[in-house]
């Protein structure tokens, strides 16, 4: 039985099992994944994982609770597990008070998206990697396979999302310890496209052979490549656009949304669900909407889950309960890629940032490290790789007063996150030219 059939069978089981005024939502998550780790251009660890679970929410008289349940794949056993879980939730609900923030989606929406482009054979991928990495110190991780997401409710909603994908994330290390990072991800593997991406990384590696330049703390002009921007935007996504964080004054973008601060008019950020790789519906059963989170430097829409919608009188817009963007898109600028070094003049070309966190969250002041392919540039020419440095700066400077230009070309970055399961989040980002970046250590 296919995953979709298994899911539909469980939905029917539930429909038959619930009593008069009970309501349910059922979310389905499954994957079959090949995981291959590389070290020194060899296979360090290889494995396969197949997993599937449902999250059942039972609602009765404005009381609700949920249980996440692993499925074994045998229809009768899983149906019994679901019935047992239903009984567990029924017992639990008798202990609860009514939830004033319960706001399920009662619409009977339907949505289906099935992408089943065949994936490459893992052995073929490993052979391609081994061929291109010959003589190089490559370390990386390949994850591939189908992902399945489903949602159904007793009100008749039914969503199904199925997609095959691969993601190879790797680094090439120079013998001096410096490294470049690269990624090749998508649905359709192409040996030629991979070889082209690999060649680009190999080209960058050659720059790393020059003697390291050590910088003193201070302020520097800088170019942040899209992967570095992804770290900054990713940090802001941690509560920044969340309706609950904004209401409880814990959002790092509190001052932006209150109008007390603004970013550069160049900055516009959307949650761009349409055309993204992630499901068109949330695990709570709300269709996800395209949202203008920041427009021309000013805070606009928030990410609103169902509980926030009820608590703060807002419209739920398909955000998950943790209210973080998962299909983020930042508007492009006008800086051509070939002009980056010339416009930078003298300063830092930063390929990636690493391990960001807040120095002062209320002030959106961030700290973090340079990592992978960071170069010192003089008069528009790359001079030397730079030893690892710490920055500490406010977003209102980096993406505000100090932001000079954004690149016209953007990079689509697919999440490499595999905590618990492979993630479908993505971000579409330009690079940024910054007039001053504060280095502290």
């Amino acid at each position, binding site marked *: 039985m296919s995953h979709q059939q298994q899911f539909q069978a469980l939905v029917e089981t539930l429909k038959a099992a619930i009593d008069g005024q009970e309501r349910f939502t059922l979310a389905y998550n499954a994957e079959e994944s090949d*995981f*291959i*780790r590389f*070290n020194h251009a*060899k*296979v*360090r660890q*290889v*494995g*396969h*994982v*197949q997993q*599937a679970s449902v999250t059942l929410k039972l609602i009765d008289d404005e009381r*609700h*609770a949920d*249980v*996440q*349940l*692993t499925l*074994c*794949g*045998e229809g009768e056993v899983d149906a019994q597990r679901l019935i047992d879980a239903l009984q*567990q*939730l029924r017992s639990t609900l008798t*202990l*609860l*008070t009514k*939830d004033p923030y*319960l706001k399920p989606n009662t619409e009977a929406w339907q949505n289906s998206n099935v992408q089943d482009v065949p994936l490459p054979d*893992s052995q073929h991928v490993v*052979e391609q990697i*081994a061929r291109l990495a010959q003589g190089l110190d490559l*370390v990386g*991780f390949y*994850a591939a396979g189908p992902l399945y997401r489903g949602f159904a409710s007793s009100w008749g909603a039914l969503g199904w999302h199925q997609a095959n994908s691969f993601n190879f*994330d790797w*680094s090439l290390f120079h013998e001096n*310890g410096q*490294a470049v*990072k690269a990624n090749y991800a998508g649905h359709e593997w192409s040996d030629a496209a991979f070889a082209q991406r690999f060649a680009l990384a190999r080209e960058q590696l050659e720059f790393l052979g020059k003697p390291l330049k050590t910088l003193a703390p201070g302020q520097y002009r800088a170019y942040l490549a899209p992967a570095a921007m992804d770290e900054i935007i990713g940090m802001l996504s941690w509560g920044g656009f969340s309706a609950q964080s904004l209401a*409880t*004054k*814990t959002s790092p973008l*509190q001052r932006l949304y209150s109008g007390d601060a603004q970013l550069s008019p160049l900055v516009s950020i959307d949650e761009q669900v349409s055309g993204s790789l992630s499901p068109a519906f949330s695990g709570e059963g709300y269709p996800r909407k395209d949202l203008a989170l920041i427009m021309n430097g000013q805070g606009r829409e928030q990410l609103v889950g169902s509980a926030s919608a009820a608590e703060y009188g807002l419209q739920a817009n398909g955000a998950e309960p943790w209210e973080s963007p998962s299909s983020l898109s930042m508007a492009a600028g006008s800086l051509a890629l070939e002009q980056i070094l010339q416009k930078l003049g003298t300063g830092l070309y930063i390929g990636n940032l690493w*391990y960001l*966190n807040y*120095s*002062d*969250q*209320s*002030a959106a002041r961030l*700290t973090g*490290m340079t*990592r992978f392919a960071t170069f010192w540039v003089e008069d528009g020419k790359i001079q030397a790789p730079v030893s*690892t440095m*710490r920055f500490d700066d406010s977003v209102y400077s980096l993406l505000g007063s100090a932001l000079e230009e954004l690149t016209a070309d953007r990079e689509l970055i697919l999440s490499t*996150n*595999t905590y*618990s399961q492979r993630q479908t989040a993505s971000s579409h980002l330009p690079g940024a030219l910054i007039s001053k970046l504060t280095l502290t*250590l």
Partner: protein
Amino acid sequence: MFDLSAQLSQRFAALQSRAQFYSLRYVRQTSQHLCVRKNVAEPPHLSSDEGAMLTVRLNGVEAYAATRDLSQRGLQAALEQAEQHASRLAPHALLDLSDQPVATARADYLSPHLNDAFAPLADCIALLMSESNAVPKDERLVNWQVSLGLENVEQIYLNNAGAQIRRAQRFVYPGMTVTAFDGSDSQTRSLGRDNFGQQGGAEVISNCGLVGSAAQVADQALQLIMAPNTPNGPRDLLLMPDQMILQIHESIGHPLELDRILGDERNYAGTSFVKASDFGHLQYGSELLNVTFDPEIPEQLASYSHDDDGTPASKQFLIRNGLLERPLGGALSQFRADMPGVANSRASNWNRPPIDRMANLNIEPGDESLEQLIGGIEHGVLMSTNRSWSIDDARNKFQFGCEWGQLIENGELKGVVKNPNYRAISAQFWKNLSAVGDASTFKVLGTPNCGKGEPNQVIRVGHASPACVFKQVDVFGGDA
């Protein structure tokens, strides 16, 4: 307890394999997470998860397959899938593990008080509601929540060399946060949460100090929004245990992980400023620094008898009198690096393979009371409760931030300061350790949220530490 043990053993015995070595690691986890926010109970989140990982070693090449299907047919299919991977990718394998010894132990391990029933769900919600209601009425207090997480985990490890290692554990995570807002700045004060968790029963809630703490936590949040920023510049730094655990974790634990030193994590978690040749030679910190891998403190999060590869666990000094002695490397890393390590090969669940992880990583107590530590500081700052952490990929240059700061002048605690941060370099920082608190300052803490590995794994780690003093550290505040 261990309900599936006999059935699993039978099914394991019936497996057919051409591998020289194979093992099964079964994990069942049930959990319950409760939270009351601003006196409203959030819906309980429950979970029930089980599955197994089959690992094979075929002609020296290891591979795994993890399955949710625990039937004889499902386990056999997973075993064959692992064999297929090992066979097909053998020409590209980094390691030949033909000669690596395998586990043969038979043992059971239980968390303390595991046989005592935990409080029923209704009582737990009532406790959280009571603490939430105890937060004082003050319009500046804009958010607060009280939470309780409970996880029951059973693991059964079997291999074809005869090992059978069973573990049943209960983990408890109490916590509270209160946020104050003055119209411009917000400050959050917390208790427990990501800085606290223990194995055991209801006593863990007492150990955390949750009951009766609401008024103090709220008061400290209000003090923080009225406090000046932490001053900038070098000062002596007194770190309380709930910040020491982060300091140990990031700048001792991660750099001593042997798989990082061997390069496995260079694409993700990073490398280390420590080299394999440093063990036995490098003076990591001052002579006051004694760091142990200690799986023998029963309530600590990562106490166990054997790790997830079946290696017996015992207390070991990693750093003694400041000298680096031993890495955090499990059996596989020890085999690869040809050096002794510890039993820290751990997996986050049945669907992730064991790798080198921190487990319980502790600093041994010294001989000074908290009053003596404060009394010995002329110009300093006390920092407590981690809230921000950032460190480079070699685990050297770091910047950490805390919720709570208090100035120390001429041996006395003075006013509260907000946004306390400090930055330094690991390789130098521990040499500035100038005083170590005694057993009265020692706390057994930990976090469920250590991330590492490809595929990614988040795992529980325990850290216990006394309060410690560091000389002349670069401290600073925020902008607000």
